């Protein structure tokens, strides 16, 4: 089914994209309710965050489970500087840049770590960043957080109303997906994927693994930072409790439920996960129970994710020594011979 969809898409690429774009623009005019718009805006935040994590986990096969740390840096960078009166539009980008520098600082000493070790280090960094944000009261407001984060001017409107803010987020979602698409279909993207598939072979072809892993981390962190920065003015208030490890796991589940190693996967993932938790609101305290069962069922039924093809199943091989089903297939093939 996915294959058919794909060929259909490839045939009418421009038209489909144009229709999608038109729909995206029309959306706020069709939906009246702010709460529905707000949910859509939340989904779009997560599209950016999940896509940025997908760049790291899905394309270069590194395993980052502390993504919330990057989001935190982005959010706080914008909030702190916005208090000093810096223009918000500039800060969206600047927050991304700062986050990607932090990403580089984290990546440099950890370049030779793989799999579970890298996972634990990212998790550790995420917690360290959160605790610093909680304790460095002078800079971050500590447990008091930062309130009254201003929204940017937008066509003469300065409002965090979801109908207006939607366009700002939409803009960044499009840029994020667009740049990711272009980078992935270039020398850089191919180098990332070669590292994911087989780092020894990549090395033997002259791919500077350290450099490309670092670039990968920086690119992923950049968008995580932008995503975090986008959230702050919309919610007008941030504190460190918004960037716990659970938040990182949440983003990770979106990537994997959607399908990592594909551009569309994180998009599908954030839509599905956020809608589900919203739909099961009627279940009251059993809400997260249902969500938990859904995650597990998902891994049983479709481990490559909703939008994933078999190509992305293996996307995170560095986490496992075994080559998964693929190796089995290979072995069988040899036996036949």
């Amino acid at each position, binding site marked *: 089914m996915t294959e058919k969809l794909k060929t259909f898409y490839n045939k009418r690429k421009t038209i489909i994209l144009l229709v999608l774009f038109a729909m995206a623009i029309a959306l706020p005019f069709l939906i009246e309710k702010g709460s529905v718009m707000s949910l859509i805006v939340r989904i779009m935040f997560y599209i950016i965050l999940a896509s940025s994590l997908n760049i790291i986990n899905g394309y270069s096969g590194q395993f980052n489970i502390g993504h919330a740390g990057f989001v935190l840096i982005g959010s706080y960078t914008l909030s702190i500087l916005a208090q000093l009166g810096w223009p918000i539009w500039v800060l969206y980008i600047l927050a991304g840049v700062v986050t990607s520098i932090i990403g580089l600082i984290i990546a440099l000493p950890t370049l030779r770590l793989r799999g579970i070790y890298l996972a634990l280090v990212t998790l550790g960094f995420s917690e360290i960043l959160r605790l610093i944000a909680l304790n460095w009261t002078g800079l971050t407001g500590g447990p008091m957080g930062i309130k009254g984060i201003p929204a940017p001017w937008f066509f003469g409107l300065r409002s965090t109303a979801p109908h207006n803010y939607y366009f700002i987020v939409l803009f960044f979602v499009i840029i994020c997906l667009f740049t990711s698409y*272009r980078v992935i279909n270039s020398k850089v993207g191919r180098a990332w994927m070669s590292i994911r*598939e087989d780092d020894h072979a990549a090395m033997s*072809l002259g791919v500077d693994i350290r450099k490309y892993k670092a670039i990968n981390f920086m690119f992923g962190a950049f968008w995580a930072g932008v995503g975090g920065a986008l959230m702050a003015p919309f919610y007008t208030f941030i504190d460190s409790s918004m960037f716990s490890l659970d938040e990182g796991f949440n983003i990770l589940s979106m990537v994997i439920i959607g399908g990592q190693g594909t551009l569309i996967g994180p998009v599908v993932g954030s839509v599905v996960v956020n809608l589900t938790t919203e739909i099961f609101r009627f279940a009251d305290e059993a809400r997260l129970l249902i969500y938990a069962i859904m995650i597990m069922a998902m891994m049983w039924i479709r481990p490559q994710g909703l939008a994933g093809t078999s190509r992305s199943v293996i996307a995170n091989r560095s986490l496992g020594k075994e080559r998964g089903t693929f190796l089995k297939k290979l072995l069988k093939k040899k036996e036949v011979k």
Partner: protein
Amino acid sequence: MGVLLQTKNISKYYGGIKAVQNIDMQVEEGEIFGIIGPNGAGKTSFFNVCTGNLLPNGGEVWFNGKNITGMRPAKIATLGVARTFQNIQLFNFMTVLENVKIGFHTHEKTNILDAILHTKRYKEDERLTHEKAVNLIERLGLAKESDNLAGNLAYGVQRRVEIARALALNPKILLLDEPAAGMNPIETKELSDFIKQLRNDGHTIIVIEHDMKFVMNLCDKIMVINFGKKICEGGPDHVKSDKEVNEAYFGKGTTF
């Protein structure tokens, strides 16, 4: 014709096990150089030292008049040393075309900004890479596999894709680690012809094998390794008649 790849006194130990001991080797430009030896003789370890995948415990590796000992594999690859792996290490979930395109990595100058903005440099790179990759694939007779996932190909074809990927580097020297392993006689013959063709195209080639016949027919010069030591070096005829080699390979008392 000068010396292209040279090792001086290379040793590699794993704990107490001496995998490679004091091996000297000289490979001249334009020759097909064979390394043979029984399983576990240290061929692949020696190979990995030459390509930088392993650090030697002693000795030096020189390539094209440059000391490359201790350089990172990626750097060595950039200098013009390409290799294949004993147990085929293709990028299984990428297409054949993508696999070969990665081979051109060192020739591309695109950086991340070029990619995002689609600058002239990006377009030029993509066009050239695509052209060259398609050419290379055609040259190796892989045209009809171009869009298949590398992992789904037949074994012999995978070998060829791996060689194509290595050739994309446009290397001065090509190191093939047991290229004939698991092939049937017809495929082996084809491979042998293909390697000769490569040499005629101007590549220098080192081949590891333990299939004696394959090596004898193919190589200009052969080095024999046993228990990590070089026991013999010379042309096929010289090696064939060497007593020590025969003992190492077939036990005492046998002759070719």
